[in-house]
């Protein structure tokens, strides 16, 4: 039986800071005195001042100061539980939300929680990651409050052999959420890089803890570039953000909520109906599913070919230039 003791989570956002943000958001036109805020959330006035500074640092527009009182300029786009939970009502993700202003990696936190017996549906969010991880030890650059960095913990009642399909449905969920929130039709590069204009704006790293016949848990880490206006030079040719692709600001709160709702929807469908609906949807929206010229780079080789659909288990089929069909289990897929 999994233990249910909660591990210590350094940096977890103080519930009273969450309450402060909620209090300011619920009174957008009102100047609240430092004393009143302090009384309502149960901290000292100097702590209120310190926390207001912290909120300003992640882009929350708060006017005023310790003498005059504080007023929020617009509803903040911070992914704290008090603001996110109302958007997740009725989903498996509303109950256990772990928010950090800064953390090493949301996947690492979720893995720790998973080993400690945390239940299905736990959600870990960070405004900023200092050690965001990608595939093969690559970095994911996670700037302060401009993107979404979230990991969900799932305990799927399926054998580990079927778990890789979860990576496909996660990519689809991000794609659908973006379409719903912004109207943009993103592409998916197998298995789950979400692209706009050929550039990556979402990366998903899924990690599993399993025995041969039993899946203990899966953590799905999702990084979306949302409101960045520039990309670091080293990835500028490869990466983009919703803002850069659309020219518009996007609410991270709303996008994250939609993403999680789609994720649960596809997950339930997968459990109820098996892989087919996921494979069909992937084939419908991904330009990489069929007839795409690609270069495949695996740990042992590199070759070019043309994509030829997915296997029933989600594996990519690629027809090599010499005609042989290759199944790609893992590796980098690039447009050739």
């Amino acid at each position, binding site marked *: 039986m999994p233990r249910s003791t909660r591990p210590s989570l350094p940096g977890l956002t103080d519930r009273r800071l969450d309450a402060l943000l909620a209090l300011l958001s619920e009174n957008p036109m009102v100047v609240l005195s430092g004393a009143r805020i302090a009384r309502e959330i149960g901290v000292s006035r100097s702590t209120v001042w310190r926390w207001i500074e912290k909120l300003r640092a992640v882009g929350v527009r708060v006017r005023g100061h310790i003498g005059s009182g504080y007023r929020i300029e617009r509803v903040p786009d911070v992914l704290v539980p008090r603001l996110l939970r109302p958007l997740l009502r009725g989903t498996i993700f509303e109950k256990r939300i772990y928010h950090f202003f800064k953390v090493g990696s949301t996947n690492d936190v979720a893995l720790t929680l998973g080993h400690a017996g945390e239940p299905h549906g736990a959600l870990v969010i960070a405004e900023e990651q200092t050690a965001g991880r990608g595939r*093969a*030890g690559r970095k994911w650059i996670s700037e302060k409050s401009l993107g979404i960095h979230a990991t969900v913990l799932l305990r799927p009642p399926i054998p580990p052999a079927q778990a*890789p399909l979860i*990576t*496909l449905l996660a990519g689809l969920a991000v794609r659908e959420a973006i379409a719903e929130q912004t109207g943009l039709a993103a592409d998916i590069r197998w298995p789950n890089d979400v692209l706009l204009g050929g550039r990556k704006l979402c990366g998903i790293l899924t990690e599993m803890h399993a025995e*041969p016949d039993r899946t203990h848990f899966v953590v799905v880490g999702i990084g979306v570039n949302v409101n960045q206006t520039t990309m670091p030079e080293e990835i500028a040719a490869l990466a983009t953000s919703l803002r850069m692709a659309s020219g518009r600001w996007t609410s991270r709160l709303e996008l994250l909520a939609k993403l999680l709702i789609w994720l649960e929807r596809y997950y339930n469908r997968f459990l109820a109906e098996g892989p087919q609906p996921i494979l069909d949807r992937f084939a419908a929206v991904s330009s990489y599913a069929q007839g795409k010229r690609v270069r495949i780079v695996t740990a042992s080789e590199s070759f070019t070919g043309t994509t030829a659909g997915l296997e029933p288990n989600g594996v990519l089929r690629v027809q090599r230039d010499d005609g042989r069909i290759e199944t790609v289990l893992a590796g980098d897929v690039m447009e050739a």
Partner: protein
Amino acid sequence: MTARKKTEEAKTGAASFDLEQLERVLEFMAQHGLEEFEYRHGDLHIRLRRAMANSNASAVRFAAPEIVVAQPSLAAAPVVSGAVPAAGPAPESPAAPAEPSPGEELHLIKSPIVGTFYESPAPDAEPFVRVGDHVEPGQVLCIIEAMKLMNEIESDVAGEIIRVHVENGQPVEYGQPLFSIRPTRKK
């Protein structure tokens, strides 16, 4: 295992490497006083070992093909046996420290999914474990990747890594042995 049984295995198990070729290799080994011969090509893996005290008592052993398709139980069995019990006197030469003794029961770590085996968390990083390392339960031994799903394989016993059955970047099947571990004896 008798020599006869092994011959049969040779016939059924390795079509692309016939008995005649094996005999030639054994002859070559005897001529040059070689104790061990290992051959890998594609999914074929052959390891030959001679007892040095008696050149006639050559021991032949087939490891399971390193890639066994959808036959997890098949993949598991032969690889565990480790060193071949020689027909003649036991070899006197110093064995590698991690070499299992004949008939020893080793603990096998198998792959829970079809995927690609990674010995380290990143291409340029140190392997999680090496032969001879002592591991504890829960310690990460490797990663198996399938469709960007990373499965960290942990040891479920305390013990010494005796053998790594697969190479970095190699595809593995469901149930394929990854590591042989000699469990630490309880006091």
